[in-house]
């Protein structure tokens, strides 16, 4: 579960206060809202990439407001995947475990399991430059899942994909959420994505987040 309690922040001229929201445990939640309403900033706050001016942030009941991003037990997939430009697919997926100083054998095993699950076996030695949009997003997803996060934060993960790749990713995301029993917060402005994926739909409007269904 993710809880935002009376969160306030300011980015340049844009500021918000008194933001409250609960993302339920083990569900696929979709956060919708118009462009520029602050959806991505909410994700960055949960990731710890931005610091709130005030308020509390809890993940799995534990307060993480002041914790660095790497200690929040989260997985983050930004819009374009944001792959590491100089690493192979295999290195990208194993990155989080390498940072956590896990044994080489454990990293290899995790990489091959995720590669099989995400259909990336043939791409493990490829660099990000030659990958398609869908492949990039699957690598980004594998990289986030490798550290077995409690929460998966997806910031418009399908917006840069063509229709076929998008449908494939929708199926994959739903399957991953169930198989990994992970809490997902998926940010989008597409109501079609919400229909296809959401257990819970949240809408951000006028600086507040409310549950739609």
């Amino acid at each position, binding site marked *: 579960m993710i809880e935002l309690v009376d969160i306030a922040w300011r980015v340049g001229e844009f500021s918000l206060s008194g933001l409250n929201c609960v993302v339920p445990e083990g569900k696929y939640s979709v956060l919708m809202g118009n462009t520029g309403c602050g959806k991505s900033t909410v994700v960055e706050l949960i990731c710890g990439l931005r610091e709130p001016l005030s308020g509390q942030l809890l993940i799995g009941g534990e307060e993480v407001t002041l914790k660095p991003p790497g200690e929040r037990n989260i997985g983050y997939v930004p819009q374009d995947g944001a792959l*590491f430009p*100089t690493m192979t697919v295999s290195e990208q997926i194993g990155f989080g475990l390498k*940072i956590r100083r896990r044994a080489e054998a454990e990293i290899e095993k995790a990489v091959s399991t995720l590669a099989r699950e995400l259909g990336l076996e043939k791409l493990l030695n490829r660099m990000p430059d030659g990958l398609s949009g869908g492949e990039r997003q699957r690598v980004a997803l594998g990289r*986030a899942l490798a550290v077995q996060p409690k929460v998966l934060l997806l910031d418009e993960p399908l917006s840069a994909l063509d229709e076929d790749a998008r449908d494939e990713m929708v199926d994959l995301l739903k399957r991953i959420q169930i198989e990994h029993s992970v809490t997902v917060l998926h940010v989008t402005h597409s109501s079609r994505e919400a229909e296809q994926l959401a257990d819970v739909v949240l809408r951000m409007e006028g600086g507040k987040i409310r549950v739609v269904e």
Partner: protein
Amino acid sequence: MAYESRIVTSILRALLGIVTRRNSRFWSLLVFVTAGYLLFIISMLWATATYSSPSDYFEALNSREIQHSVFLSLLTCSLTALLSLLLAVPIGYLLARKDFRGKALVESALDIPIVLPPMVIGLCLLILFQTRLGGLVDSVIPFTYTVFGVVLAQLVIGAAFAIRTMRGTFTQLSQRPEDVAMTLGCSRGSAMWRVALPAAGKGMVAAGSVAWARSLGEFGPVMVFAGSTRMKTEVLATTVWLELSVGELEAAVAVSLLMVFFAMVVLVAMRLAGERW
């Protein structure tokens, strides 16, 4: 001769190609201006290269003093390029990634060495090392009129160009991958080290090359702050001046051509690195 004419012909052919493909007066005019300017540069280099015979040049370059100057130039320029990078990477990263009050002022201040007349930089260095603090530093590491002084004088300008290049490089690189690395357990420093720096490799080659090339041609600050003592602080740029001042035109031309060669090597290295600066 055949080689040089081939270069000129290929450049002209490339330019004329534009005109035939887009048969308009507008493009013809632009091609005319570009060709005129290129012809001027090529004529300049051509005239210098053919001023005397290759055997005369090799004879001039055989002198012990000039060889020492070549060695010292290569050594000091390489040291300066390395030190410039050590300054440019953290400063460039700070400017590209962090917004802070007074940033525009800091950026302008970092450009001061680029806009100051080179002689003035030499004079400022000389005066700085006349102050109490400067004197103290000088008593530990002697800079004034030494090889260390040559490097410091080159560094003031070389680093300013390297900082500009690195700032541009980091600005072009998206911050997102570093953000993701942080969510995977990296600190900001480790994300920079593991993600941003490997991706900025080409930019670092470009920054190092531009610092190296600027240092090679640095004359004013080196002359004023480190002097041009033969076999001690004489570098290629000061050699040209020293040889000219004693009427040794062949030697001055030989050294100039050597500098042109080094500059070309750097230009090719930068082209290969694929970065604009």
